[in-house]
């Protein structure tokens, strides 16, 4: 069989080399699935038009709208216009471009629409061993199914449309081995925040991470996607998890997954993907999951993170650190617990899937959102929304006093009208706590859905284990 043992990444990479890299030229890599959305695609279509090019393989490109779309029902379904005119223009541009170039689009009212990284796996478009790209850095999410998935810029979106290929230098590999059972109240989000805290925001630069170990094996697909989603927050090119029975059970029967005999053959192929025993990674990191606690960020990048019972670190004489704390309105040495909270956001491609909503609802059931706190729950896709409603989760949120919206990126980034006010503290299940990410002057604390729900109930930063 194979002379040299290979990693999962190497197997997928090699299978997609149209031409391997040489000292002078990068590899030409074939792309199996290209996802596009309204924000990073218009300029790529402009280039196609300027150069008189078409799309090489239209069935391999799939479009949705999520970033700049509103989440208020009346703007999505009620005939009320999209409030932000420039956003409405982007949505129209995507509709026009998809119609002109023959790309399948899930438009604003489509029952399967949602955040691009939620719907790819949900529809079964994302599959083990595929190369998946999108003009969006959180494309790393799809790696949870054993795909090689990474974010690209708009110029590269144009390259894939025109040639179905990309020029890429082969990244290095980083194994993160995670073992031990996650304690109660600690989930996939806490795990990935702890990993980023450990390796830093540039710790994965130039590398593809493979998450390995029994903790990862024990995670369901939603949790695995949460972990892979934030690979980019550690600077990594992509994050991957080897496919296993959990992956196959998740994909079986999904509308765009192979069916019948083709399914059997696909599973056969996918079983060969996991990293061979003895394969070498360029770097390895070990994590003990059994000692982790709920994590929360206190600063303006995701590596500025502490266990929720901890105190904000002191770094005297570091002006960048001081600037970040000044923005957040925090003092070194201050405990983060009990700090007042103004807004709670549950949603995004990190934590907008059904099991995330179940976790948040489990804590909110029979409780109320603290007075003066705004809580927004935004399902990651219309399908997640319907599933949650079938289970009655929306009633739990509404009865607690939270808002229940249509799917989209919403408050994860400030471009669709869902904003955190200046100086306000938002506990958010999203992935970026950068300055101004959720609105000008907004202060973001990243946390898990459980922690976010606990903070909503108490109106203060709260360890969810106190309410469990």
């Amino acid at each position: 069989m194979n002379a040299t043992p290979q990693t999962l990444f190497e197997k997928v990479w090699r299978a997609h080399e149209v031409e391997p890299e040489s000292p002078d030229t990068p590899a030409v890599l074939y792309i199996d699935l290209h996802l596009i959305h309204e924000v990073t695609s218009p300029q790529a279509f402009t280039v196609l038009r300027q150069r008189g090019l078409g799309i090489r393989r239209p069935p391999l490109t799939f479009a949705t709208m999520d970033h700049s779309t509103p989440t208020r029902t009346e703007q999505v379904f009620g005939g009320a216009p999209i409030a932000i005119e420039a956003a409405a223009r982007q949505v129209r541009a995507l509709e026009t471009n998809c119609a002109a170039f023959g790309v399948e689009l899930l438009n604003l009212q489509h029952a399967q629409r949602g955040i691009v990284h939620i719907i790819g796996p949900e529809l079964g478009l994302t599959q083990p061993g595929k190369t998946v790209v999108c003009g969006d850095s959180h494309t790393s999410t799809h790696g949870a199914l054993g795909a090689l998935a990474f974010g690209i810029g708009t110029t590269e979106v144009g390259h894939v449309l025109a040639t179905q290929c990309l020029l890429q230098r082969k990244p290095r590999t980083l194994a993160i081995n995670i073992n031990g059972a996650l304690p109660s109240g600690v989930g996939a989000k806490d795990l990935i925040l702890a990993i980023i805290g450990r390796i830093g925001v540039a710790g994965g630069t130039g590398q593809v991470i493979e998450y390995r170990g029994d903790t990862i094996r024990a995670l369901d697909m939603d949790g695995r996607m949460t972990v892979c989603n934030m690979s980019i927050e550690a600077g990594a090119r992509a994050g991957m998890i080897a496919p296993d029975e959990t992956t196959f059970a998740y994909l079986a029967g999904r509308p765009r997954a192979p069916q019948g005999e083709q399914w059997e053959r696909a599973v056969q192929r996918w079983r060969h993907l996991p990293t061979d025993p003895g394969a070498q990674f360029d770097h390895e990191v070990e994590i003990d999951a059994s000692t982790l606690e709920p994590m929360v960020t206190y600063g303006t990048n995701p590596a500025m993170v502490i266990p929720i019972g901890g105190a904000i670190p002191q770094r005297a004489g570091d002006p960048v650190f001081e600037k970040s704390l000044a923005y957040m309105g925090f003092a070194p040495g201050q405990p983060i617990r009990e700090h007042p909270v103004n807004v709670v956001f549950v949603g995004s491609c990190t934590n907008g899937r059904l099991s995330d909503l179940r976790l948040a609802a489990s804590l909110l059931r029979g409780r109320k959102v603290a007075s003066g706190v705004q809580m927004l729950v935004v399902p990651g896709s219309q399908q997640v929304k319907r599933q949650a409603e079938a289970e009655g989760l929306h009633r739990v949120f509404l009865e607690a006093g939270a808002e229940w919206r249509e799917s989209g990126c919403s408050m994860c980034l400030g471009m669709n009208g869902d904003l955190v006010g200046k100086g306000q503290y938002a506990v958010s299940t999203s992935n970026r706590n950068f300055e101004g990410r959720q609105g000008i002057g907004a202060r973001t604390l990243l946390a898990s859905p459980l922690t976010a729900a606990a903070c909503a109930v108490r109106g203060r930063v709260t360890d969810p284990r106190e309410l469990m």
Partner: protein
Amino acid sequence: MKPIRTLRSRTAVLAVSDIDTDQIIPARFLTTTTREGLGKHLFADWRYGPDGAPKTDFPLNRPQAEGCTILVAGNNFGCGSSREHAPWALTDYGFRAVVSTQIADIFRSNSLKNGLVPVIVDPATHRWLLENAGAEVSIDLETTTLTLPTGQATRFALEPFARYCLMNGVDELGFLLGREARIAAYEAHAGIA
């Protein structure tokens, strides 16, 4: 793309580490459907006060920064999103090179496609540049060196193909289209019709 062989300019210095793409161009400016005109929104939340007036203490608003084409930033520049609007905003503003100790992968890739040269230097050179804002430096792509006014020259790494494209104004799309026969052969072999 215009070929770039050498750049010579005074530096503008932003001594902040981990500058992310939301700082370079906040999301509310991403609703555009063109590439042009983003320079006025570059670093918008740092550059302008709440009333929209330029903040006089922001480095790019100082008179000395006017006309600078080389930006020196703190450690690890460009992390965050894949928005190509970030290099579009920087080049529209007038920058042709960004210097740091580390540059995020997607941002670097996007920069190269827009004639913005990513220059990664060693910590000592970086410190000198941060401490000497406005110094006249030159960047030579032929030799991949950055030369300080002290005469000290530092080599920087630049992927050979990217360097070739920058120096010859070649775009990657043309190269990829030229691989048509190989791509067709791959598709035939993989059963993609």
